[in-house]
């Protein structure tokens, strides 16, 4: 006789999640048979706040959308606004933006390797990876002036130059990092603790990954070669040779290996960019008023494809600003990965997409006339849509 399914609520507060988010799991024995996510617990109203501030202020507001991929957000913001303005930034600024973007990718991926090790109970690896992550954090502080919110991008270029002596320091730091990251990849491939918890766990087939619009390392770990840096090059990526890393195993282990290899590629990109850093200005002056127009920007953030949209009306403030963060793109695929797996694998599979709920949560429904506010899950929204059309 089959067991009845049991519903297990997970979150919004749960030790396995660093941020508040809610998942309802339906389980049959030890197997997960259905997952219903409910997002919106970390809503901060960033888009509305952006409409009430000038473009210069928005630059720093948008940067605070995420504490880990802060540079990706400003790169995308400047890309969108510069497109509306019709400004072409100097080549040196493009290279400096690329260097910071790649340093950030190393810091984000090594953070993830540490967190994944922590989720599987391998705290030794977690401590060691995070110790070596300090090298890249110090390099970011050296170049930009802050460890987390670099604030190096500005409209029309970058705010700080990379002097030759700083460039030498970065290269020295990268040499150490390269050795360490190679070692951690070896650990991932050989250590039984890692293999037992990650190999053949959280499978996402390539066809599912495409159908569910997975992005970033999650997509590339399913063997699909898609990277905005290569497919739609922005800043200086069209001038720098690099390889798009893919793995075919479709499990958490391949997500780990994709990130390890991407760190290696990032180190190569930074070395190339430092050696080929063009001379000249680092920024051009841009007007405070942005003409009427709209634009969409795409950036490969450490977690995947990040999309920004802006509509301007000729004033100093945007009329509408929208962010689509990579975590939102990966939520349907993480639900697919969890189905059919064990309850015990939930934390590592969830951590496998490198979720960042605070950047994702900007969706809430507000009825202005009744001054009422509520949050819907995808299922409720779908039902509402069907009922609404039936009434018509």
């Amino acid at each position, binding site marked *: 006789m089959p067991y009845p399914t049991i519903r297990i609520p997970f979150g919004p507060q749960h030790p396995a999640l660093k941020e508040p988010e809610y998942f309802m799991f339906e389980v049959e024995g030890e197997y997960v048979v259905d997952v219903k996510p409910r997002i919106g617990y970390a809503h901060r109203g960033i888009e509305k706040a952006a409409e009430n501030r000038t473009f210069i202020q928005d630059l720093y507001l948008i940067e605070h959308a995420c504490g880990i991929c802060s540079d990706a957000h400003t790169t995308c913001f400047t890309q969108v606004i510069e497109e509306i303005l019709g400004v072409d930034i100097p080549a040196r600024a493009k290279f400096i933006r690329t260097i910071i973007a790649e340093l950030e990718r190393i810091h984000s991926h090594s953070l993830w390797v540490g967190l994944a090790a922590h989720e599987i109970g391998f705290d030794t690896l977690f401590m060691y990876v995070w110790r070596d992550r300090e090298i890249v954090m110090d390099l970011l502080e050296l170049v930009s*002036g802050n460890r987390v919110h670099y604030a190096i991008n500005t409209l029309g270029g970058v705010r*700080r130059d990379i002097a030759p002596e700083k460039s030498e320091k970065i290269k020295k730091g990268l040499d150490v990092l390269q050795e360490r990251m190679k070692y951690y990849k070896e650990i991932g491939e050989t250590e039984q603790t890692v293999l037992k918890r990650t190999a053949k766990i959280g499978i996402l087939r390539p066809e599912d990954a495409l159908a569910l619009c997975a992005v970033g390392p999650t997509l590339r770990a399913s063997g699909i070669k898609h990277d905005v840096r290569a497919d739609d090059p922005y800043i200086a990526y069209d001038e720098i040779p690099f390889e798009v890393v893919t793995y075919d195993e479709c499990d958490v282990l391949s997500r780990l290996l994709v990130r390890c290899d991407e760190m290696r590629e990032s180190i190569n990109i930074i070395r190339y960019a430092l050696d080929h850093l063009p001379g000249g200005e680092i920024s051009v002056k841009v007007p405070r008023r942005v003409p009427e127009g709209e634009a969409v920007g795409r950036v490969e953030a450490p977690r995947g494809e990040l999309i920004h949209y802006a509509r301007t009306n000729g004033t100093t403030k945007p009329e509408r600003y929208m962010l689509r963060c990579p975590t939102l793109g990966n939520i349907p695929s993480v639900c697919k990965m969890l189905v059919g797996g064990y309850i015990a694998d939930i934390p590592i599979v969830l951590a496998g997409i490198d979720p960042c709920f605070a950047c994702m949560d900007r969706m809430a429904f507000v009825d202005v006339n009744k001054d009422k506010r509520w949050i819907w899950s995808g299922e409720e929204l779908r039902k509402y849509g069907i009922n609404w059309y039936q009434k018509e």
Partner: protein
Amino acid sequence: MAMVKELLRHIFRKPVTLKYPFEKSKPAEGMRGRPIWDMERCVGCELCFRDCPSGAIEMIGRGSEAEFKHHLDRCIFCGRCEEVCPTNAIKMTEDYELASYDRAEMIIDFKRTRNESI
């Protein structure tokens, strides 16, 4: 067991963490810490006040009479005020130990020294 060699190598090493507050890490050159106003140079153009993304700068009075209140608890240390200042009156210092139990202590006044005899 792949990490055993690495662990053995570290047994006799010192911990990598610093014993804060007895040992402090030296901030990198150009780190953005607490901003300070040089009121001798300030011309009261309002640019820092208008551009501040977090509303941390409060301006009292106008023009060359203007005085400032800097709200450390709101400041995000982006350095926009330093960048936009036309007379270089604002400098980001390397002061990063800014925590306090009292929010009133986190409002820093920048007043002009008035010469009463004139």
